[in-house]
């Protein structure tokens, strides 16, 4: 039995004039208040375009204007903003279909931003808007529908009978809102939804669908981090639906469409020629990293205690390649030949409400394979896929879930948890059936499932208070920054990567800076100043993708064959030049290398000031838990004793001979924390921030982020008033 949208109760409706995109911009955004069910258009000012560019910049600006310093994640005025950027939606340059989602996060209490594929963002842009703001809280479950062909915004009451979990819900809504069952019509509908898990956990995510004609069904990509799905559900939004038929080559009205084509074709050819020798994204996706990380002692194993295990090869890329469906163009937007969005098809589930059914599992991506695999000491691909599928359909972030579950399993090993405290769930290392049971219990609202999925920050505190666990140990092994769980790379041996994770605005997410190889393996940035420069350049450069609606992967997961000849191969200079040309080809405006970084720097500093405005953004919030910096436990030290002893002798200048392991752990710890302190000093200085982490008014003016309300926030913090 399937519905059509006419079966749903229409609550409100607003017609709008179809717009036309000029050089990448609609110069208009859409605001929907689900509380009052009113929709309104807002013009984009020239100032907003200059200062914030688009995407994440627009998202943060709209969010700032809509909220107050007192706004918390569940305040009705908190928003979810989905914004695209000027390059988003072009069909030529690989990785051009991203939208950026921002909201005040239930995990961190500051703005989170998440970069996501799927068709919703580009369709929304083609429907006439550079961003969508969702505000308010509905008194009943609603579906927000935007018809980009008719010029219509409708709010429907979501019927009780509709499934809550994404793989069913998005499929049903795709069919309900499509003009007919013709595959081309189904492809014209995109859905954003969460799932039952997001109703009860702060780590809820948003699934962005795309209809896959070859699979004759939907697939989903995730705006995973920071609990935006939880905000969606708090607003009682069941789903967002956008319909747009008529995607074509130059809907962005590029200033130079032939140049957009030429740049795209050049990269397509580079990918087709080089990918098999480089990252094998077209065959393995990001899971290609698994054995590389294991080889370098970087693959999280047992809650980031170790980075390697002899069992690593059991979940290596070649294992995944056999499971992932091959010979399909699995991009998350048209024209992405890097095509990393793979899936395991017809996977038969072994547990839960859909047990025995054959489903399409989107992924696993590296983060999921690592975080819900070796990090839990799970080397069974079926277990990883089962967790991957249920996390997605319940609307739960696999990174936060993996890192939380590994924390729980370590607590089980340490005797802090037992069957009495877990409602009988066995959380021994490697028991993925225990992990998946936690997830099912969350979906059903059972006690331990709900408790367990509150995230490690809460749990560390809770176990210390309720179960008498050592508070320092809990703090040390709870891998989070600002409340957000760390993603899945071992950062212990790379000081720069510790900064890449924790000197971030939103929390430890690898999308800002991934410096492990540059720092630890190739030793290219040995001094604090060099690390600080890298922790300026790379976060700024990577922020730029989010302003434009781009994916980062085609920047450095494919490289020109002669990339190594450049003085700074880590920057992939030819691709940076491509991006500048692409920006100019679409917007018609030139972009110097310096201005590219400045575009990001303005938004990055704005985001930092936003954190400050919300009462955060202090140095103290930028420290990692010690597990991310060095060995917490004695057996952890002993497992890599040769390395740590050598470092003690050579770097710290203390002879380890005759010292007990306990003493050596303490000496190493003291040294590493001092190193990190020096790193913060160097990075904050380079970024133009005070030693407490607040952008200085002079710096804000210098980069052109000189809006009075932003300067005022910085001045108040520095004066000790906020």
């Amino acid at each position, binding site marked *: 039995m399937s519905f059509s949208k006419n079966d749903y109760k229409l609550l409100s409706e607003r017609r709008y004039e179809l717009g036309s995109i000029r050089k990448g911009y609609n110069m208009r955004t859409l605001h929907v208040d689900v509380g009052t069910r009113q929709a309104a258009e807002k013009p984009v000012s020239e100032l907003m375009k200059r200062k914030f560019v688009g995407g994440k910049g627009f998202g943060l600006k709209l969010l700032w204007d809509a909220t107050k310093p007192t706004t918390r994640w569940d305040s009705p005025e908190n928003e979810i903003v989905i914004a695209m950027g000027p390059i988003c939606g072009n069909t030529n340059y690989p990785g051009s279909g991203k939208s950026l989602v921002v909201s005040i996060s239930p995990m961190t209490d500051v703005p989170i931003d998440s970069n996501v594929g799927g068709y919703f963002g580009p369709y929304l842009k083609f429907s006439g808007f550079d961003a969508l703001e969702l505000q308010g809280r509905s008194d009943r479950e609603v579906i927000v529908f935007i018809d980009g062909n008719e010029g219509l915004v409708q709010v429907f009451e979501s019927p009780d009978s509709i499934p809550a979990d994404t793989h069913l819900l998005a499929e049903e809504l795709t069919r309900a809102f499509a003009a007919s069952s013709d*595959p081309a019509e189904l492809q014209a509908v995109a859905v954003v939804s969460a799932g039952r898990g997001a109703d009860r956990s702060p780590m809820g995510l948003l699934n962005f669908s795309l209809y896959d004609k070859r699979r004759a069904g939907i697939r989903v990509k995730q705006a995973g981090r920071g609990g935006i799905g939880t905000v969606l559900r708090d607003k009682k939004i069941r789903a967002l639906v956008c319909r747009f038929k008529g995607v*074509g080559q130059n809907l962005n009205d590029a200033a130079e469409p032939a140049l957009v084509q030429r740049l795209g074709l050049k990269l397509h050819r580079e990918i*087709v020629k080089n990918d098999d020798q480089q990252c094998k994204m077209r065959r393995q996706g990001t899971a290609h990293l698994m054995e590389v990380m294991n080889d370098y002692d970087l693959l999280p194993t047992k809650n980031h205690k170790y980075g390697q295990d002899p069992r690593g090869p059991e979940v290596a890329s070649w294992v995944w390649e056999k499971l992932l469906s091959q010979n*399909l163009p699995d991009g998350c937007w048209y024209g992405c030949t890097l095509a990393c969005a793979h899936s395991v098809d017809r996977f038969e589930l072994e547990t839960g409400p859909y047990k025995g059914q054959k489903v399409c599992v989107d992924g696993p991506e590296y983060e999921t394979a690592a975080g819900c695999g070796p990090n839990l000491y799970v080397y069974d691909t079926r277990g990883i896929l089962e967790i991957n599928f249920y996390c997605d359909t319940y609307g739960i972030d696999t990174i936060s879930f993996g890192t939380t579950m590994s924390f729980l399993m370590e607590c089980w090993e340490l005797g802090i948890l037992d069957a009495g405290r877990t409602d009988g769930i066995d959380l021994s290392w490697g028991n993925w059936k225990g992990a998946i049971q936690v997830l099912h219990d969350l979906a059903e609202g059972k006690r331990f499932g709900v408790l367990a999925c509150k995230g490690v920050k809460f749990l560390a505190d809770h176990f210390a208070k309720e179960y008498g666990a050592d508070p320092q140990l809990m703090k040390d092994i709870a891998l989070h920054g600002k409340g957000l769980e760390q993603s899945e790379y071992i950062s212990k041996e790379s000081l720069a990567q510790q900064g890449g994770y924790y000197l971030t605005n939103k929390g430890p997410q690898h999308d800002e800076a991934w410096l492990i190889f540059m720092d630890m393996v190739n030793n290219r940035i040995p001094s604090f100043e060099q690390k600080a420069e890298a922790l300026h350049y790379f976060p700024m450069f990577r922020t730029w993708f989010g302003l434009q609606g781009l994916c980062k992967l085609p920047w450095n997961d494919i490289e020109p064959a002669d990339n190594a000849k450049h003085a700074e191969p880590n920057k992939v200079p030819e691709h940076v030049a491509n991006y500048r040309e692409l920006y100019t080809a679409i917007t018609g405006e030139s972009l110097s290398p310096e201005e590219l970084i400045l575009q990001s720097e303005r938004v990055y500093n704005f985001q930092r000031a936003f954190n400050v405005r919300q009462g955060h953004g202090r140095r103290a919030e930028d420290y990692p838990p010690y597990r991310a910096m060095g060995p917490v436990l004695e057996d952890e030290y002993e497992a890599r004793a040769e390395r740590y002893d050598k470092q003690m002798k050579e770097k710290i200048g203390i002879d380890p001979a005759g010292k007990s392991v306990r003493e050596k752990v303490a000496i190493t710890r003291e040294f590493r924390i001092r190193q990190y302190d020096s790193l913060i000093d160097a990075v904050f200085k380079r970024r133009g921030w005070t030693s407490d982490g607040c952008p200085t008014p002079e710096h804000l003016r210098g980069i052109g982020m000189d809006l009075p309300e932003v300067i005022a926030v910085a001045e108040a913090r520095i004066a000790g008033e906020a």
Partner: protein
Amino acid sequence: MIKYLKTNDEKCVGCMSCVSACSLLYEKEDNPAKSRIQVNGQGRGAFHLIACDQECRKCVQECPTQALVVSKTGVVVLDKSLCVGCLACVAVCPIDAMIIFPGDKQPFKCIACGACVKKCPKEAIAIAEKEESPASRVWAEAIAAVRKEEAK
């Protein structure tokens, strides 16, 4: 069976009659860059003819919107109503038989219509038929392997 344009480089004298016939028929202008068959000079009076062999179907496999389809006669054709102009097909074509004229919204390719054959003075090109090869079935097999079981 697959219908295709069979080429014989040794017979070609580079007169460009085929190219003119093709671009005039499909683009209403005599422009070699808009022809579905391409003649590449190799020097010393040798020429290499490029036209889709209709067999490898890498473009069909790569197309994100399934705008490239195989006709009943085995010919790969572009459904313009579905094409979003991404040019992935142009990049994956191993013999450069999928062509984009700079600035055009969509690419084009030989569909073995035979218009050029009639104009060739040297019988260097002909419409022929051949058996399907394993390569020509990869895309179809990949789809069959992932399709959901039909809803009851």
